């Protein structure tokens, strides 16, 4: 701990940015508490699905598989989850089906890319096109989610002044689970045997193979865990956040998530921070629209979060290094 503090560079942009953010927050809070709280809370709400979706990317890429099919995975699972929930009149069953759909979709992706060595970008594209076509074709209007999830306040944390009301209150179960899942993935990646092997397979599968690690199985499993998370996000959006399925509801979320993954340097906590930042920018843009900033065309306000993210990305890029073997199929005798 002491080391971390010592090694912290107090002049680094990260530090300055954090200080600026906190200062800004306190300022806004004292200016108007209710609006600040609601902006931060909706920032979290916008950010969470993105954060979770970028976990899908992290699980896949750290093990050496580029997955641009996150979008399609979410779309398919949102679809199945929503309709199963609405026919069975049970949102829990709906969520389970959404997760299973995610696993199944990623299994197809894994077979194509890992087992058969197909180009990973093409495989992801196939999934996206298939998902978009299939769900639009089967889509029927008029279904609704039978009931809603209970809402929680986290016992102690929600009482923290400033943070508590906006960050830790009024959370749905999936959002709550997400807050637990992301640190768990970080711990898994960095502290466990599984994580070490996953990273080795993504950096140098030859080295992993010679150490007796089954590269194919390792990659398959990680991609399918990623798929489960993707299914969860699809279910989350349709069953908790929005409460309905609409055509192509993902609207680029999967790709934004990949950008945030890169921004967060393939680190779960980094991607989470990036996603929340993006969510806040989006909440702020919405707030601006509500305030009715009339002399600026609406479109300019909606692109704000993207512009913001691009700017932050551009200025913070530095040395970005993806897992060395990401995108490369592994074949035994070639190594």
């Amino acid at each position, binding site marked *: 701990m002491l080391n971390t503090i010592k090694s912290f560079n107090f002049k680094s942009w990260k530090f300055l940015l954090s200080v600026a953010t906190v200062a800004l927050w306190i300022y806004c809070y004292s200016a108007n508490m209710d609006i600040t709280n609601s902006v931060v809370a909706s920032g979290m709400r916008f950010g969470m699905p993105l954060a979770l979706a970028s976990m899908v990317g992290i699980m896949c890429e750290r093990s050496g598989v580029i997955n641009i099919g996150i979008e399609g995975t979410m779309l398919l699972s949102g679809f199945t989850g929503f309709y199963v929930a609405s026919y069975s009149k049970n949102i829990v069953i709906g969520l389970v089906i959404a997760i299973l759909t995610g696993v199944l979709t990623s299994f197809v992706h894994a077979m194509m890319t890992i087992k058969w060595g197909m180009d990973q970008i093409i495989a992801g594209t196939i999934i996206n096109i298939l998902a978009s076509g299939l769900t639009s074709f089967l889509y029927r209007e008029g279904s609704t989610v039978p009931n809603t999830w209970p809402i929680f306040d986290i016992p102690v944390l929600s009482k923290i002044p400033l943070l508590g009301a906006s960050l830790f209150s009024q959370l749905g179960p999936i959002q709550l689970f997400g807050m637990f899942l992301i640190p768990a993935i970080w711990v*898994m990646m960095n*502290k*466990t*045997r*599984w994580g*070490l*092997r996953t*990273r*080795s397979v993504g*950096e*140098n599968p*030859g*080295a*992993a*193979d*010679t*150490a*007796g*690690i*089954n590269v194919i199985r390792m990659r398959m499993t990680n991609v399918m865990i990623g798929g489960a998370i993707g299914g969860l996000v699809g279910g989350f959006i349709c069953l908790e956040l929005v409460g309905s399925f609409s055509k192509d509801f993902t609207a680029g979320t999967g790709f934004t998530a990949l950008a945030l993954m890169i921004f967060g340097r393939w680190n779960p906590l980094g991607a989470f921070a990036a996603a929340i930042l993006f969510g806040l920018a989006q909440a702020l843009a919405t707030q601006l629209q509500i305030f009715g900033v009339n002399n600026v065309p609406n479109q300019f306000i909606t692109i704000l979060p993207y512009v913001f993210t691009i700017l932050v990305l551009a200025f913070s890029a530095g040395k970005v*290094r993806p897992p*060395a073997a990401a995108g490369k199929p592994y074949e*035994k*005798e*070639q*190594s």
Partner: protein
Amino acid sequence: MDTTLLRIENLSKTFATVKANDNISLEVNKGEVVALLGENGAGKSTLVKSVFGLVKPDSGTITIKGEVIEAGDTAAAIRHGIGMVHQHFQLVPVMSVAENIILGDEPHKGAFISYAEARESVKELSDKFGLDIDPDAIVEDLPVGLQQRVEILKALRKNVDLLILDEPTAVLTPQEIEELLQVIRNLSSQGVGIIFITHKLREVLAVADRIVVLRNGKSVGTATPKESTESSLAQLMIGREVIFRLDKKEAKPGAVVLEIDDLYVKDDRKLMSVNGLSLSLHAGEILGVAGVEGNGQRELVEALTGMRPTVKGSFSILGEVAIGKNPHAIHTMGVSHVPEDREKDGLIATLSIDENLVLNQYKNPPFAKGWIRNIAAVNSYAAKMIEKFDVRTPSGKYPINSLSGGNKQKVVIAREMSQDSKIIIASQPTRGIDIGSIEFIHNQLLASRDSGVAVLLVSAELDEILSISDRIAVMYGGKIVAILDPHDVDRTQIGRLMAGATQ
């Protein structure tokens, strides 16, 4: 009691059209050191990779301690007590030494890795074998010699019954080689069977109990060190007599073509590693840089070829200041470069042999006309190079990764030595190359020098430096500490200078 540890019976493996292993049978007894010899591409690596389950043989059986092991299953090989040090490092560059060593068999509490225990076990291991290493260093920051040490420790950690060493000494200094040979002797006295692959016959004669020679994928003979000499082994390997003789005429040095003046360069850890070095290289001479690895040779070469920024001082090529120029600009000024790490800096793994052979001139005629490449010209040129440099492959269309280690090195040499350059900077040019081809490469370097090219030869092989250099520069602590004449120096004098003694 049966003392046979490993029995390979009638093993064959064909890649595309190449019979890499052709009906090979081999036995290793407990505590026996078997040296595997053969030219580049003879099939040595393929054979041991089959034993370790990295290559799945087409036919044949592998038995260890009486049990047949499943083909193509590395995990099974490890379970049966086989350890292997690979010709091409199998390390994860971004991870620490400890993480690399424990990978696949991590000390743990529940699902969590116990890093304290890992560090401890690396410490223990390096004490036990006298191979010192920092468990927390990141592998990619280490020089190749230390990376090799990590590989060796990784293999030793598992308490193996059979240890396979595929050219472990290629990147080691003489001192480190001696240490490794000692480790081999210790292990064999504890009953560990060892398969040792090397191109250095001196090492074979020093530790082997038995020598097995492969040629074109076949096992062509067995010998013992007692009844063999370097030339008898060479003859067995190549199938003809090798005359260890160089075509070395008197050098006729000309004008200075490379002038280095008080140069300072930092290494990857931001420490000053070239420390005010001055040196001049003349046309028509071979200047050998001798030194213990890690004394700034790598950084010097990288700075001269534009791959690494310099801190202070300058150097000029053919009278033109070249400081701050990029590798392409320096290459255009007439400098060829044989890099130390062929895999990283010398070749593009995903391209074919043909394309790797023209990387430095693909856009010049006849290989291109304006924007259009002339593939036919590339292929016919490459075919000539493959023939001339004896690269063992059925066709240049194959990916570079299908070549054996030594043959990849020949591709780099062929490319860099076949252009009209004024200066050749060659770093460990014969690393991993068999003795027959070394002779050829040395003669090529001498021929270039006779035609007026200046050669800067950086090598860890003192013999190489002594036999072909016209002048020897001894490098220590980032400086040139002495310039010697190869005719009147002895090895001990150079050795002392390399270790930092003042003249």
